[in-house]
């Protein structure tokens, strides 16, 4: 029975290839959107991920960097420094704004970094300096490339006229880019000479970041502190939340497409083999076994489509990365498992119509 079910779909190689391709393409669309979104999300949270802080301290009521702003008095850095377990504190000022480069505006997280900052600077310097000096700016290398600017060229942030002194890698996504300037310059630009946004805290070697976080919040009621892991997770949730609906919708559409292709293939095969089904019934095959055989065929095609989709993605993602370097694709295990679950749904849905056809097949047709 299983041999018959398997060979029935393998025998029609052209149909099977077309079906597998269709199912795989539908899955690839869903998978790619998820991967693009995941890649963009990683880009959005790149700064808190690479800032190398053990604890993040910010204004009370703030729990994110993405789509958030935080302003605290510069003196809070010294207050936090006095908390037990704190090894060092790096204040940064942060602003969501546009950087004008090459005649275009580039939306950016602009980070004001103090001189000799121990953390919070670019984690991959591809050209020039990694420490922003007054009057200087460190741009994303992708922005520089797209804008056609090089080291020494001028860019502006509002009224601030800055010289490009460094280029960074891994700091560009379709949603934002990261730019570093001197803390002093950004304070002037924001007319906030005694302000910082976040304090990047390094804890003592033997201190527990969670305990230090609690101690900081206990010492100052106007501050909110989070361990780096909690802060990054919070930022990721915020970033994901903003596009989750779109990704879910596309996953549903991709799944529905795959279900339709699979259902059509299995249904068409069931129709084509209507007489064989009748013969199988006449010979004594019970409906339950024949429905299971159809389900088995759906599993073969659905799982096959899923595997082909993964293979297509594995081959296509690096190519896309080369062709469109701005877009970063990140295939997450959760996306793969979610798609596997969707495949299971697709398989069951696609089996319904053919199964009904099987149940309605009259074994007496074998004599016709």
């Amino acid at each position, binding site marked *: 029975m299983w041999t018959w079910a398997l*060979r029935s779909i393998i*025998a029609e190689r052209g149909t099977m290839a077309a079906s597998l391709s269709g199912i795989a393409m539908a899955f690839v669309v869903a998978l790619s959107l998820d991967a693009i979104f995941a890649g963009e999300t990683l880009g959005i949270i790149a700064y808190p991920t690479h800032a190398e802080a053990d604890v993040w301290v910010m204004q009370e009521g703030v729990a994110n960097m993405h789509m958030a702003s935080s302003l605290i008095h510069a003196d809070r850095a010294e207050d936090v420094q006095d908390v037990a377990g704190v090894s060092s504190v790096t204040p940064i000022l942060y602003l969501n704004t546009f950087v004008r480069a090459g005649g275009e505006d580039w939306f950016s997280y602009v980070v004001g970094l103090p001189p000799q900052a121990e953390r919070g600077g670019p984690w991959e310097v591809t050209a020039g300096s990694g420490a922003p000096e007054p009057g200087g700016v460190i741009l994303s290398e992708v922005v520089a490339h797209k804008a056609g600017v090089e080291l020494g060229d001028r860019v502006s942030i509002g009224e601030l006229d800055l010289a490009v002194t460094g280029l960074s890698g891994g700091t560009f996504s379709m949603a934002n880019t990261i730019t570093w300037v001197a803390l002093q310059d950004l304070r002037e630009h924001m007319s906030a000479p005694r302000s910082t946004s976040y304090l990047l805290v390094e804890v003592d070697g033997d201190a527990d970041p969670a305990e230090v976080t609690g101690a900081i919040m206990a010492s100052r009621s106007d501050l909110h502190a989070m361990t780096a892991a909690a802060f990054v997770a919070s930022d990721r949730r915020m970033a994901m939340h903003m596009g989750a609906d779109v990704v879910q919708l596309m996953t549903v559409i991709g799944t529905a497409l795959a279900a339709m292709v699979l259902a059509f293939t299995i249904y068409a095969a069931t129709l084509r083999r209507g007489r064989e089904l009748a*013969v*199988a019934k006449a*010979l*004594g*095959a*019970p*409906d339950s076994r024949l429905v299971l055989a159809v389900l088995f065929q759906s599993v073969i095609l659905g799982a096959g489509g899923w595997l082909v989709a993964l293979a297509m993605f594995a081959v296509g993602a690096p190519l896309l990365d080369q062709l469109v370097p701005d877009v970063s694709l990140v295939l997450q295990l959760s996306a793969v498992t979610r798609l596997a679950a969707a495949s299971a749904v697709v398989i069951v849905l696609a089996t319904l119509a053919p199964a009904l056809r099987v149940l309605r097949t009259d074994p007496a047709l*074998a004599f016709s």
Partner: protein
Amino acid sequence: MSDALIELHEITKVFGTGHTAVHAVRQVSMSVGRGEIVLISGPSGSGKTTLLSMIGGLLRPTSGRIVLDGVDITAAPRAAMPAIRAAKIGFVFQAFNLMSSLTAEQNVLFPTTLVRGERAHKKARTIALLDKLGLAQRRHHPPHKLSGGEKQRVAIARALVNDPPLILADEPTGNLDSASGQQVMMILHDIARDEGRTIVVVTHDPRVEDVADRILWLEDGRLRDRKAETHEWVRDPVCGMRVDAWTATEFLERGGVRHVFCSRRCLERFETATTDNGAARPE
């Protein structure tokens, strides 16, 4: 248990209802013994295949009972029928009806997956049957690489593989040349004689009569016995056509004379044109 493997009691099958009702089979009763070869013949549309489908448990009669090997299959639950068919009936079809994607051996093995038993035993029986039917060298061939005769022999092996007591064959020689048809009928004959299986064959092929123990004639849903090669040729008194009195279903007694007609139309004309004693009505 009686000697009869199949017993049909007043079987009727009506398709449709009201004015559109078609009586495919009318109150057919018959009994077929073990090891017997029974041929059911008759004109197209006479209900042969419908009758065969009912004997095979593929179709429920409108009324009447069918007892197969002691089991009343008309009273059995529908869900039980596949298992009964798999174990007790082997089917041979005119169009062979082999699974196109399977090899000859896999086709024969197919019904074995529907019954209990050891896989090795099933495989061995399959190979033995294919050997016996002269298909040892064709085991791994798909149906499209087999001749018509070979396909039908594979179908016979498939019908035999579960060792059923009954083989139902629908026009088994219908798509075969003379030599292949003869070979297939001799195989069926041997199966009945040597293995004691009951074989019911529906066919138009007069050559098959040679191996039949009994020939039944079905016309307009009614069944009657007819001895092989027995004909009684008479003239239709209306149209003059030669009619076999053994197989004719339209006849009328008038004035102590049995008149046989080729069709209902001639019978009605005769009725209109003659009086009750058979004399011509005055103009």
